[in-house]
């Protein structure tokens, strides 16, 4: 919270307008509109099956929308192929971890630098890409350092335990050099102490790489601690949005998500 | 290099792959020749032995088989390979090494022209086929409309059908329908229906034993009453189990007939029957002839200068010359070679199938 307050009137990076996605008769995301401001950490919560992951999928091109628009710094995003979205500067992690399992941790992070590098077939073949390769290698190690996995850089990603795989996913997402980072349940599979560490980590990453962050998370204390603003989805619709404290008090949110005491 | 004793003659035919149906008959014929000719003194008292190398059904295997025979087995000459396409690939190697080759079943145009060392005992299609049509017309002068059917993925059948069609036209017959099939086909209802609906008096089939036999069977089962001519591919008793009783009456163009009256053939047929209880097939006879030509040419060479005094390389060259020069009284009848190595065969035959029961039948010589 502190970081954003010191900034001058933050500009809007993402503008979602009336985003909708149907699956057959089911409306998974229903007419959702919101803005995300530069540098903020924006939380997305809601009951299971509310449409949070689907919203991320729409934003990153993995699922085509039924209707609606989304702009990133004024440019339309919806309808672009996922790799184009990544090239624009939006990157994500997956709720059901999708690492390149048989490749080493290091490779995972190197691959994700694809859009930021340029060597084509021939430059690669004739070895004219050395400087770029060295750069890729260096960044990959830095990112593994960042998530504390550099001493296992050569291990196959699929052999990592659940929690470690989540860390590697974050490193991989950062490797695309995003301006907007979308994290889908980053704390799942971490214990309470680790979740605490995660809060600090996300903030640090945000500051260090100048990011805007969107987080889906079910661990309420973490959301409340971490996020500048929180949006709540229920049955595909936005039912509340605002600062964490007010959202937490919203009776609709309590009823649908938090559960009454 | 000295000549081994017994004198090695190479046989590179298809012992495996789906060409083995032909190749295994060639193996039998060649082995027959080995036993028979050795029993009659071999090469003027020196025995010879056949060295088999599997040429399978593809070009690479044929080349490897040839290569082995030439450099490792030190054969004086080679009978093989089974298919013309293989000959185009493998023969140049023997030619280059100056090793005489006799093709036992390569009938495509251009094989003897591959080189000086390449000859064949198998007559090309163009000379075998026309007789059958002439014979059919003799049997039934009223024939007007003809259906032609051929296996379009078989090189032999494709060139044979060309000859059949030309001959038919030359004889003033109408080609009412031309039907193609594959050697791998089993159901010919489409073709047969077309033939029936074209209402022809003569059906000419170019194919191999299995598909040809099935085609004949289905033609008859579905009610075709006219004459049937089978090409040279059907000149095998392998067809009998396929069309069984329905094979009866099919007229076959033959490059070899068990009824060929020469003494050489009658001895061969007698021994073959004694062992296998049926007539020798064409592929066996041609392989036999191939081996026989080598042995007789070797005898001639040996008479000039004892075999064990030759070097291998020189012998191969002399042998080739001798092969092309000689005349041979084989089960195929009297054969010799022209300067290319093309076989000059005196007799061709037309036979009609007579089935004794569902399994046994014979080719009855029509002349």
């Amino acid at each position, binding site marked *: 919270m502190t970081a954003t307050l010191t900034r001058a009137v933050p500009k809007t990076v993402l503008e979602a307008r009336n985003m909708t996605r149907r699956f057959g008769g089911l409306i998974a995301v229903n007419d959702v509109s919101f803005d995300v401001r530069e540098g903020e950490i924006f939380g997305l919560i809601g009951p299971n099956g509310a449409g949070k992951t689907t919203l991320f999928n729409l934003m990153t091109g993995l699922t085509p929308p039924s209707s609606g628009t989304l702009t990133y710094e004024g440019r339309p995003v919806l309808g672009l192929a996922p790799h184009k979205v990544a090239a624009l500067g939006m990157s994500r992690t997956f709720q059901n971890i999708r690492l390149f399992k048989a490749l080493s941790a290091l490779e995972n992070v190197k691959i994700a630098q694809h859009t930021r590098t340029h060597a084509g077939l021939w430059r690669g073949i004739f070895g004219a890409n050395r400087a770029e390769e060295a750069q890729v290698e260096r960044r990959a190690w830095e990112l593994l350092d960042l998530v504390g996995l550099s001493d296992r850089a050569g291990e196959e990603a699929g052999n990592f335990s659940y929690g470690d795989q989540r860390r590697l996913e974050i490193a991989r997402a950062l490797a695309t050099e995003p301006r907007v980072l979308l994290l889908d349940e980053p704390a799942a599979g971490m214990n309470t102490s680790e979740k605490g560490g995660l809060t600090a980590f996300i903030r640090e990453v945000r500051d260090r790489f100048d990011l805007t962050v969107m987080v889906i998370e079910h661990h309420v204390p973490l959301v409340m601690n971490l996020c500048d603003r929180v949006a709540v989805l229920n049955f595909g619709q936005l039912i509340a949005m605002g600062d964490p404290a007010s959202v937490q008090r919203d009776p609709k949110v309590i009823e649908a998500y938090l559960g009454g005491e | 290099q000295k000549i081994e004793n017994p004198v090695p003659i190479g046989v590179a035919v298809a012992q495996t792959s*789906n060409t083995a*149906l032909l190749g295994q008959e060639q193996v039998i014929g060649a082995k027959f020749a080995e036993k028979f000719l050795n029993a009659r003194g071999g090469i003027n008292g020196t025995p010879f032995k056949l060295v088999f190398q599997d040429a399978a059904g593809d070009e690479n295997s044929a080349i490897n088989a040839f290569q082995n025979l030439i450099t490792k087995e030190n054969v004086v000459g080679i009978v093989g390979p089974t298919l013309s396409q293989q000959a185009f690939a493998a023969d140049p190697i023997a030619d280059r090494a100056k090793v005489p080759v006799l093709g036992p079943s390569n009938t495509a145009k251009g094989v003897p022209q591959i080189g000086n060392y390449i000859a064949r005992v198998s007559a090309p299609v163009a000379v075998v086929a026309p007789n059958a049509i002439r014979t059919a017309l003799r049997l039934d002068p009223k024939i007007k409309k003809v259906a032609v059917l051929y296996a379009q993925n078989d090189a032999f059948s494709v060139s044979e059908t060309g000859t059949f069609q030309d001959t038919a036209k030359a004889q003033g017959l109408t080609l009412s329908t031309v039907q193609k099939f*594959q050697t*791998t086909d089993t159901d010919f209802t*489409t073709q047969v229906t077309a033939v029936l609906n074209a209402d022809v008096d003569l059906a000419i089939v170019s194919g191999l034993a299995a598909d040809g036999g099935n085609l004949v069977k289905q033609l008859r089962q579905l009610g075709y009453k006219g004459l049937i001519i089978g090409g040279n591919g059907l000149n095998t008793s392998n067809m009998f189990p396929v069309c069984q009783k329905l094979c009866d009456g099919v007229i076959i163009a033959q490059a070899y007939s068990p009824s060929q009256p020469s003494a050489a053939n009658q001895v061969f047929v007698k021994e073959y029957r004694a062992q*296998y209880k049926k007539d020798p097939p064409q592929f066996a006879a041609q392989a036999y002839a191939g081996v026989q030509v080598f042995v007789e040419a070797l005898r001639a060479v040996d008479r000039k200068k004892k075999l064990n005094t030759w070097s291998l390389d020189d012998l191969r060259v002399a042998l080739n010359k001798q092969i092309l020069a000689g005349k041979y009284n084989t089960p195929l009848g009297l054969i010799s070679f022209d300067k290319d190595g093309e076989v000059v065969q005196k007799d061709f035959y037309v036979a009609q199938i007579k089935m004794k029961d569902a399994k046994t039948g014979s080719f009855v010589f029509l002349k």
Partner: protein
Amino acid sequence: MELSSFVQSLMNGLAIGSVYAIFALGYTLVFSILGIINFAHGAVFTLGAYFTYTLVVGQFENNGLLKGINLFPDGSPFSGSAVMFGLATILGACAAGAIAVLIERLAFRPMRSRGADPLLALVSSLGVALVIVNLIQLLVGAEIYNFPSDAYGEVKPALSFHIGEKVVIIRTVQLIIFAVSLVMLAVLGYVIGRTKVGKALRAVAESPSTASLLGISVDRFILITFFLSGFLGGLAGTLVGTAFGVAGPYFGVVYGLKGLAVIVLGGLGSIPGAVAGGLVIGLAEAFVPAEYSAYKDAVAFALLFVILLVRPQGLLGRNLIQKV
């Protein structure tokens, strides 16, 4: 197209299509449980025909190690009546099923337990096919074997009727093939579509480890599946063999490839798909006009290519929308 030739082509297409279907079902069963293509299936098809032939005739010709053997000096008990012939067919198919089980034990199971690349199953089953085909040749030679013409007893070989001027002819074997195929399809369709067994089968297919976590005995299911697959393959082999003769050890190869086209066209792992695929390809081939019959083999594959472009999961395959 004239009505008579239309009807004729339809009949031909249905008959050959139903053989494709019943053969392809064997493929599809194995695919649906192990997610692999069993290239030895074509060889099992061949074996089925040889097994039945052995029972019905019991004699081999001039080549191979078994030449001259005569199992039934007094004539085979399975020959001469339609019922006994049917029995021989079933026994032959069962023997083919047993071989398929053996193949699973020797060539697939050890691989599964070693966590090999599933594609390797293609190679291993190719090896098995090579072994079977060449063993057949070694034992009984490459020649064509044929069932006695009275295999079905006194059943007439063909029925014919007229439409207008033109004849339409149906061979009896075609009808038998069609009928047997329908029965097999109905039975399998019921077992797999409607019973708990079918669900369990699909579970094993999707994830053997998860299936075992639910108490499903994966090994037993695989065994049953292979038996069924071999049975169907062997049955198809005998049916085709009685209709057209057993054309040597490579007899099943063409069916092997066509069968693949059939299951992919219909949708991998789908039982109705195998049926639909078989019929579509059979009919397409039958309706190729005679003057283009040279291109008949290409038709099945061209059709396959085009249909896959429109429906990447095959005609009746289910498209799994991946959730991320």
